[in-house]
C-alpha cells in the first residue's frame, strides 16, 4: 500500500517557488551574520533571477505545447502560471531595488526586509501556480503573512502601525470568508482541485447549485479583498499610504498580480463550470456589478486625492477594475490579456512609486502635487520617467498601459460584456485628468518655495529600478508582441470555455 500514486510528485514544477524559498532563508541568515546590506540585496536579486530562469523554461515548454504539471494537476507550470510567476519576480526585483536605495535613509534598515519580500513572493508564485483550492489558500497565507509585517515596517509611525493592523485584521477576515467559500465549494462539488470541480459543476446531474454559487461568491470576496475590488477596497488607500513607499510598491504590484493570477484561473475553471449549469447567469452578474463599481469608485476616488501616494493607491483600485474585465472573459482571451496588462501595470506602477521615493523626504512624507512642481527642470530624467509611467497608467499610446487596456476591453467585448467595456472607456477618460495633473505640475509650473525637493545624492539602485520601469513601459508599448505572443500561444492547462 502506498500513500501516493506513481508519478504523482513532480518536484521540478516547484522549482521557482523552492528557489525563492531557499534564497529567502539564505538572505535571512546573511542578514543576521553580514552587515553589508548591498550584498544581501544582491543575493536576493540572484535568487529572483534563478527563479526567473526556471519560470522562463516552463514558459518555453508551454510554447511547445508540453506544459508541465505536478501532483495530479494540483500544481501547474503552464503558460499562465509561468508568465504570472515572471511578472511577480519582476515586481519583487523592483521592490528589492527600491528598498535597497531608500530604506537606509528612512532609518528602516532592518535585515528582515529582503527575506520577507522573498517569502511573500514565494507565496505569490504558489498562488498563481495552484490548481487546487487548498494549494491556493496556502499560497495566499504565505504571501499575506509577510506583507502584514512589511506594512507595519515603520513601527514608530502611527500611520504605518495603523496600516499593518488594518491590513492584518481585514486580511484575516477576508481569509476567513475565502476559507468558508472553499468549504462550501467542497461541500457542493466534493473536490478541491479545479479540474474535478469544473467537471462536477458542468455535469448535467449536478444539483447543489445554490451552495456552489455561494461558495464561488465567497471566493470572489476573499480574492477580491486582495485585489481591492469595490466594496472590499476600503483598506487599500489607508494601507498603501501608511506603509513605507518601497513596501507599497511591492503590495501594489506583486499582491495584485498573485491574486489576479489565482482569480483568473478559478474563473476559467470553477466559475466557467458553474456558468455552464443552471443559474449560470448569476455569477457573471455579480462580477459585472463589482467590476463596474470598482471602475467608478477607483477613478473618482483618485480624482479627489491631494497626495500623489494616495492618488496612486486609488489608481491601483481603478486598475483592479480594468483587470476585472479580463476576469469576466477568463475562459477566452482574458488570461493572456490580463498577463500583458499586469506586466505593464507592474512596470508603470513600480516606476511611479520609485520616483515618488525620490521626491519624498526622509520621513517618507511630502507627496503633494506641489512637490512635483518644476521637477521637469530640476531632475529632467526623473520627471521624464514619471511622465512615461503616469501617461502609461492613464492609457495613452504609445505606452504599454494603452495596449493593456485595449486587450482587456477587447477580451470583455468578445465575451459579450459590452456595457462594462463602455464603462471602462468612459472611466479611463476621467483617469487622464488626475494623472495629467502631476505631469502638468512637473513641466508647466515653477518650483514652489514651500515644497522643495530634498537635497541628497541620487540612489543608484533606485535609478536602476526607475530605468527598468520606464524603458520597459516604452518597450512593451512599442513591441507588445514580444510578451503577448508568449502568453497567447502558450499552452494553458485546465482552461474551460463554457458554451455561450
Amino acid at each position, binding site marked *: 500500500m502506498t*500513500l501516493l500514486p506513481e508519478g504523482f*510528485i513532480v518536484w521540478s514544477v516547484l522549482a521557482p517557488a523552492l528557489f525563492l524559498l531557499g534564497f529567502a532563508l539564505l538572505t535571512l541568515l546573511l542578514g*543576521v551574520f553580514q552587515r553589508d546590506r548591498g550584498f544581501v540585496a544582491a543575493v536576493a536579486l540572484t535568487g529572483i533571477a534563478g527563479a526567473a530562469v526556471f519560470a522562463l523554461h516552463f514558459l518555453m515548454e508551454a510554447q511547445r505545447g508540453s506544459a508541465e504539471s505536478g501532483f495530479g494537476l494540483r500544481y501547474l507550470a503552464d503558460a499562465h502560471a509561468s508568465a504570472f510567476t515572471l511578472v511577480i519576480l519582476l515586481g519583487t526585483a523592483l521592490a528589492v531595488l527600491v528598498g535597497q536605495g531608500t530604506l537606509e535613509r528612512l532609518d528602516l534598515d532592518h535585515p528582515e526586509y529582503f527575506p520577507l519580500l522573498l517569502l511573500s513572493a514565494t507565496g505569490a508564485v504558489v498562488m498563481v501556480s495552484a490548481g487546487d483550492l487548498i494549494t491556493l489558500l496556502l499560497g495566499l497565507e504565505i504571501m499575506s503573512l509577510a506583507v502584514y509585517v512589511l506594512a507595519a515596517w515603520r513601527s514608530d509611525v502611527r500611520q504605518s502601525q495603523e496600516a499593518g493592523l488594518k491590513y492584518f485584521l481585514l486580511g484575516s477576515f477576508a481569509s476567513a470568508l475565502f476559507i468558508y467559500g472553499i468549504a462550501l465549494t467542497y461541500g457542493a462539488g466534493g473536490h478541491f482541485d479545479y479540474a474535478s470541480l469544473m467537471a462536477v459543476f458542468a455535469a448535467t446531474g449536478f444539483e447543489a447549485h445554490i451552495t456552489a454559487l455561494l461558495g464561488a461568491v465567497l471566493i470572489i470576496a476573499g480574492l477580491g479583498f486582495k485585489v481591492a475590488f469595490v466594496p472590499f477596497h476600503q483598506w487599500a488607500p489607508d494601507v498603501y499610504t501608511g506603509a513605507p513607499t518601497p513596501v507599497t510598491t511591492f503590495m501594489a504590484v506583486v499582491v495584485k498580480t498573485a491574486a489576479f493570477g489565482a482569480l483568473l484561473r478559478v474563473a476559467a475553471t470553477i466559475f466557467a463550470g458553474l456558468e455552464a449549469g443552471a443559474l449560470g447567469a448569476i455569477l457573471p452578474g455579480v462580477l459585472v456589478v463589482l467590476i463596474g463599481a470598482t471602475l467608478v469608485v477607483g477613478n473618482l476616488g483618485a480624482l479627489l486625492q491631494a497626495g500623489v501616494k494616495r492618488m496612486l493607491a486609488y489608481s491601483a483600485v481603478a486598475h483592479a477594475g480594468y483587470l476585472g474585465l479580463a476576469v469576466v472573459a477568463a475562459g477566452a482571451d482574458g488570461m493572456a490579456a490580463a498577463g500583458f496588462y499586469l506586466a505593464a501595470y507592474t512596470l508603470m506602477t513600480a516606476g511611479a512609486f520609485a520616483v515618488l521615493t525620490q521626491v519624498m523626504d526622509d520621513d517618507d512624507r511630502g507627496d503633494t502635487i506641489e512637490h512635483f512642481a518644476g521637477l521637469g527642470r530640476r531632475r529632467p530624467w526623473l520627471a521624464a520617467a514619471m511622465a512615461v509611467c503616469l501617461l502609461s497608467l492613464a492609457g495613452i499610446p504609445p505606452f504599454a498601459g494603452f495596449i493593456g487596456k485595449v486587450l482587456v476591453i477587447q477580451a470583455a467585448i468578445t465575451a459579450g460584456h459590452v456595457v462594462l467595456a463602455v464603462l471602462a472607456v468612459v472611466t479611463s477618460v476621467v483617469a487622464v485628468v488626475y494623472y495629467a495633473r502631476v505631469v502638468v505640475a512637473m513641466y508647466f509650473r515653477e518650483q514652489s518655495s514651500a515644497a522643495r525637493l530634498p537635497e541628497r545624492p541620487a540612489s543608484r539602485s533606485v535609478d536602476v529600478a526607475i530605468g527598468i520601469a520606464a524603458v520597459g513601459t516604452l518597450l512593451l508599448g512599442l513591441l507588445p508582441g514580444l510578451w503577448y505572443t508568449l502568453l497567447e500561444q502558450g499552452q494553458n492547462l485546465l482552461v474551460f470555455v463554457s458554451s455561450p
Partner: protein
Amino acid sequence: MYESLLMMFLAAGFIGAAAVVVGALLGPKRAGPDKLAAYESGLPATGTARERFPVHFYLVAMLFILFDVEAAFFFPLAVKFGMAPQFLFAQAIIFVAILAVGYIYVIRKGVLDWK
C-alpha cells in the same frame, strides 16, 4: 434522528444548572478569612497577581509555543511514515532545515540572552 441529541443537551443543561442551584441553596456557609482567601494550591498567597514582569517573557513564551507546535507536526508524519518513507523523510528534513534557520535567526537576534 436528532431527538437524542436534544435530550442530551437538555440533560446536560439540567445537571449543570442543578449542581449550581442545589449547592447554593443547601450548602453550609461558614466564611472565615482563610476560606475567603485566593486558593493558590495550598500555598499562602502573597502580593498581587498584577505585577509587572519583563516583556521578554512574552517573546520566549511565544517562541516556545512556536517550536512546540511545530514538533506536533511530526506525529501525523510518524503515523504514515511506512507508506512513503523516502518522500516523508525528505519532507521532515526540509521542515527541520527551515526550522533550524529560524532557530539560528532567533539566537543571533539575542532573543534567548537573558538580560
